[in-house]
């Protein structure tokens, strides 16, 4: 009755099975990372193509209508919202990354560059045709910055409420030349910092009420 049914190979077998299950988990995770990167790349590619297509058609009309500003503002807003959605997706995927860190960083870089391109295009059109839409640059910090997080919530809700508002978010400390140029141009020293309509700079958390007031004022001007 007191038979010892233990054999050392049971410990080894358990170890082998555990390692095998872990490896399967890693492999599935790797496959999922690939899917995420493919998904984000496709979204980014679509966003870039849409943006390019918009820019080309706008230029075409501008050239062939001898300087008339006949571009579709709604479509421009849509491009801004698309970029914001893309940013959210990328943030979610970025939090899950374990492998392919470089690929994620490249995607983020590409995304920030797309945002900057959009910003430039917006500025160019506003200068040419007179400003009608609002645009916000939001510089945040990813590392445990509560104020950035809170500012993000506020901007999210405003972005949903104001149809003609485009919000472009940038990781203040991201290692890219274009972002560094932007932060140095605007003198961004801390996160969160927001720039409203190219020139109004606010450092630190800005409440929903304050932002609403600024946006409404810009609308009436």
């Amino acid at each position, binding site marked *: 009755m007191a038979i010892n*049914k*233990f054999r050392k190979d049971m410990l080894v077998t358990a170890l082998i*099975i555990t390692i095998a299950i872990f490896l399967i988990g890693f492999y599935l995770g790797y496959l999922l990372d690939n899917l995420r990167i493919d998904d984000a790349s496709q979204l980014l590619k679509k966003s870039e193509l849409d943006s390019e297509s918009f820019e080309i058609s706008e230029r075409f009309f501008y050239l062939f209508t001898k300087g008339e500003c006949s571009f579709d503002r709604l479509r421009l807003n849509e491009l801004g919202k698309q970029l914001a959605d893309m940013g959210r997706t990328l943030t979610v995927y970025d939090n899950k990354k374990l492998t392919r860190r470089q690929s994620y960083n490249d995607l983020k870089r590409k995304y920030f560059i797309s945002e900057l391109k959009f910003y430039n295009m917006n500025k160019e059109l506003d200068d040419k045709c007179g400003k009608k839409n609002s645009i916000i640059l939001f510089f945040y910090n990813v590392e445990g910055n509560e104020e950035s997080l809170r500012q993000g919530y506020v901007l999210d809700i405003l972005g949903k409420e104001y149809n003609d508002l485009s919000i472009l978010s940038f990781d203040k400390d991201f290692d890219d030349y274009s972002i560094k140029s932007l932060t140095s141009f605007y003198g961004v020293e801390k996160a969160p910092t927001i720039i409203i309509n190219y020139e109004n700079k606010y450092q630190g958390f800005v409440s929903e009420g304050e932002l609403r007031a600024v946006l409404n004022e810009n609308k009436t001007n």
Partner: protein
Amino acid sequence: MFEIYIWIISFVSLYISIFWIIISSRLEKNQSNELKEFPFVTVAVPAWNEEKTIINTVKSLIQLDYPKDKIEIIVVDDGSKDDTSKILKNFLKKEKISYVKVIKQNNTGKAGALNTALKIAKGDYFGVFDADSLASEKSLKLMLPYFSNEKIGAVISPIKVLNPRNTIEKIQRLEYIFSSFIRKLMSNVNTLHITHGVLSLFRTGVIRKLGGFDSKFNRNLTEDFEIALRLRKNDYQILLCEENVNYTKVPNNLKSLWFQRVRWFRGFMVNTLRYKGMVMRKRYGLLGRFQLPLELLTVCVVFISAGFMGYQVIIRLYNFFIKLSILKIHFFDLFKIPTIKQVVLEINFKLFFSFFVVLIAGIYLYIIAHRYVDEKWRFHLVSFIYLFLYPIIRSLQWVHAFILEVLGAKERWR
């Protein structure tokens, strides 16, 4: 950091689950040998304020299927403030039972009460039986044949919960089923190191040789665990007799359950530290090199998890309220029902796949544990609480026990 921690936990949990599954796959129901001779047995019942349960407990011992001239029952009333001994004496007088002795003494603690019985015990075997439990008729006949050689120092039985009614009792019912099953597996690989109070049989000579139950060691709250470790330290084996099942009453509210477990966990910490010399020692085989390190690791994991859990809860609640305070009525505007693709892509598979497998392994062990003790298995709300919420409560109990131990809070076994 968090990811590395999750990996370590899931790896260890998975490894242990698979190890137990392998052991359980070789599990066969034992059949006790028939008892040819009837050795003299003493059953000691330490009691403290047990007037409500003592009669039923003693009745179950009287009804044991064992020659009455080969058994003595010693009830030690350890300074009860109620009428435990009076009620019992009246009952014995009325029933004209002479082989049950009742001793009343000042409160010395459970170990002290057991030592009082041990001093006068005539039996070759010494049984420990709590005053809130019920023994099965065949207990002695089934358990005694397990003492097949001199190195077997103690034999215990699986325990079931007596008439579980409310949720707290039903959760403990599952807990006892699972722990009985794990004890069987431990018994099979010779790592069992517990002799509970719901009828543990010891060789009287061995217990006397080892100095009896520990009533002197500072704040020893689990003398049953201590004596088991002492037996193991002295190279005695402990076995589980699966054919016999005894029943016990369990705490019926969270407060009593909480304090019972805190006491057990404090006892575990004190005694494990006291017997730390057995950890990783070749002499103690799988117990020293696998079971005890594993238990220490589990306790460490529980503490770290409680820390992480507390941190996560605070951070998430903080973020939730911040978000709520900023967004106010817009709060729910930000929620969208995710698509299947979003759900799949948001799962951190590398991190949680092994956790998922651990969960399946746990459920599998849970099912076979039920089968093993001939209990019906059903997945209901109580199972859900037991599998998912109860571990959180246990973690907090461990933290409470640790804090009390560090502060040196005084507590007797009752």
